[in-house]
């Protein structure tokens, strides 16, 4: 009914437009709409006519559906991978032997937005300390961090007053990941946000990290937060991977009843894209890279993803 009314309105409008080109365009649009409605009607009629014998409704193809199967997708029962993960650099954290302690810093001379971003990150990640960079070399900072018991070093890189990169280095001798950061929204810019996050440790949700590289990434993010199955405080940090982009969101939830949950977004949100994963602590010149993003090789197939 709505459609018919709209069509009538537009039909009147079309004939009254004096400009031939614009009138033509409006008319073509109108015809297209009509055609669409007619097709839909026809299809529905055919479906109803066939009744039960009708073929199932086609699922629309999306890039996620059409994703090329990745051979490195981890099988949950794989023993080799389980052994590998049981003895890698994160095993100390996953065996509850260490608690995370994060040092957040920036590139030299950060501007307001980056500073605010670092402060907000420090409220989201428990036991995080923000330090001013002072132009110090990371290779010299790392041994000092290790001596003071830090487990992570996070460096937010800034370009033109906006944070655009992140180096996340797991400290004792762990892998270093370099990300591209985009779409940073600080708390002020969030709509319908709740109050500031409290001191409680958030839960961590890791979505869609299926491949071997994705697994390593998942462990990297999980080790930022303390491992505590007794959740206190209704806060949750989500790392959602889709098409190789990792979306970070921070929410507070409340169960209204058994089935329904209300969530409020607090805290910063940003998107990460992995550029390289290097074995060992930060050493971009002589370090060995476990995975490097090679853009031209990834552009060949739109449906192949790595994480």
């Amino acid at each position, binding site marked *: 009914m709505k459609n018919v009314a709209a069509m009538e309105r537009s039909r009147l409008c079309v004939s009254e437009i004096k400009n031939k080109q614009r009138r033509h365009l409006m008319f073509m649009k109108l015809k297209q709409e009509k055609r669409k409605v007619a097709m839909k009607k026809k299809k529905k009629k055919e479906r109803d006519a066939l009744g039960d014998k009708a073929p199932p409704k086609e699922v629309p193809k999306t890039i996620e559906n059409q994703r090329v199967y990745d*051979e*490195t997708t981890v099988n949950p029962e*794989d023993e*080799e*991978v389980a*052994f*590998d993960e049981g*003895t890698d650099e994160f095993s100390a954290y996953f065996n509850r032997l260490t608690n995370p302690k994060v040092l957040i810093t920036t590139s030299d001379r950060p501007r307001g937005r980056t500073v605010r971003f670092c402060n907000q990150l420090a409220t989201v990640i428990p036991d995080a300390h923000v330090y001013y960079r002072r132009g110090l070399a990371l290779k010299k900072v790392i041994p000092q961090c290790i001596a003071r018991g830090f487990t992570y070093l996070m460096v937010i890189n800034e370009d033109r007053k906006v944070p655009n990169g992140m180096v996340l280095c797991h400290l004792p001798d762990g892998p270093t990941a370099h990300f591209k950061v985009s779409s940073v929204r600080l708390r002020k810019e969030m709509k319908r946000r709740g109050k500031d996050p409290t001191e409680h440790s958030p839960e961590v949700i890791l979505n869609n990290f299926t491949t*071997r590289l994705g697994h390593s990434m998942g462990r990297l993010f999980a080790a930022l937060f303390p491992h505590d199955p007794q959740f206190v405080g209704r806060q949750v940090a989500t790392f959602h991977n889709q098409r190789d982009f990792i979306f970070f969101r921070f929410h507070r939830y409340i169960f209204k009843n058994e089935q329904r949950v209300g969530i409020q977004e607090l805290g910063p949100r940003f998107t990460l894209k992995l550029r390289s994963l290097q*074995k060992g602590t930060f050493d971009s*010149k*002589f*370090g*060995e*890279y*476990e*995975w*490097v993003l*090679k853009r031209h*090789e990834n552009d060949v197939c739109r449906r192949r993803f*790595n994480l």
Partner: protein
Amino acid sequence: MADKSQVCSVWVGSETGILKGVSLSKKQAFNFCEMSCLSRDQEVCVLGWGDEHETEVLVGSVNGTVKTFSTEKGIFTETRQCGESTQGRFTGIAVTDSALITCVETGLLRVWKEGSTDTVEINAGTNVCRMRQNPSQRNQVATGGKENGLKVWDLERPETPIFTSKNVRNDWLDLRVPEWVRDMSFIPDSDKIVTCTGHHQVRVYDPASPQRRPVLEAHFGEYPLTALSLPANQDSVVVGNTHGELAILDLRKGLVRGCLKGLAGGVRGLQCHPSLPLVATCGLDRFLRVHSLEDRSLQHKVHTNTLSFSYTLSTPEAITGDVEEVKEEGGEVDEVWDTMEMINDQAKKRATDEEEAVVTGVEKTTKKRKVVK
């Protein structure tokens, strides 16, 4: 186990101590490991052939043990303790008549003779990154490392090296150029040695010439070169760096002939096939790839689950073995293909008998169906 190991054409060692055999025809990696023996200190550092006929693989681990694996039987036959983990990782392993040569990072090069416990020891300096044996003169080995130039040793005269290289002249700022030999290889049919360095240089040394400085120097990329291999035809070398860039360099002028694409992680092991223009690479991205050197395309890619920390080794061309397998596969295909195949096999046999270069046309048609060995 035995049938699995006989089918494998490439051997890869991993970080967890598992020896993996990869069958390229089945595109699958098989694990060969001793039960309940997985641990990080069993990490494989070096792989080497145990004998001329390539039926035994020597596996050197971080904790100082050298295990012998028989490809025919499919099990580990022997374990020897050749040093402790405090002495550093193995950087090279080789076999001469009846002796095993091992070299560790701290520079201790030892020759373990069969039957007797005493060893001939050579101190090759500190920080040795690689030790290699001369395939034509089996008692010569070369060592090189960080701030430790290339030295060629004769095992019969263990006191002094027969060739010590000299560093290049100071650069344009009159500063000493740092040295870091990561891998080296003896060029067959001549005395020359080609090395690749951690400062992205490829250098050729000639012990026969009076100059101890490199005869040729070439640069590639901006990252340390970690592995090197010489393909069957002369005058070129394939190198790989920590970023996963593989390049074929020409040794006549030192120019890059082409790059091989596909690797996403640092290259740890690189091996060219002795006669076919193929190169196998293993690295930190957990894949074994075989590229063709002629058209630089990827021929095979096999997922090995763990980080491949050491060398790949290819089995030999055992051409008669090849031909038999091809005939078996041919049985599944059409009759037309069968007849074609027969002719090709015969041509190949004739070619090898006369020791001529195999016709590339024949190669290309048979390559796809052959087991790459």
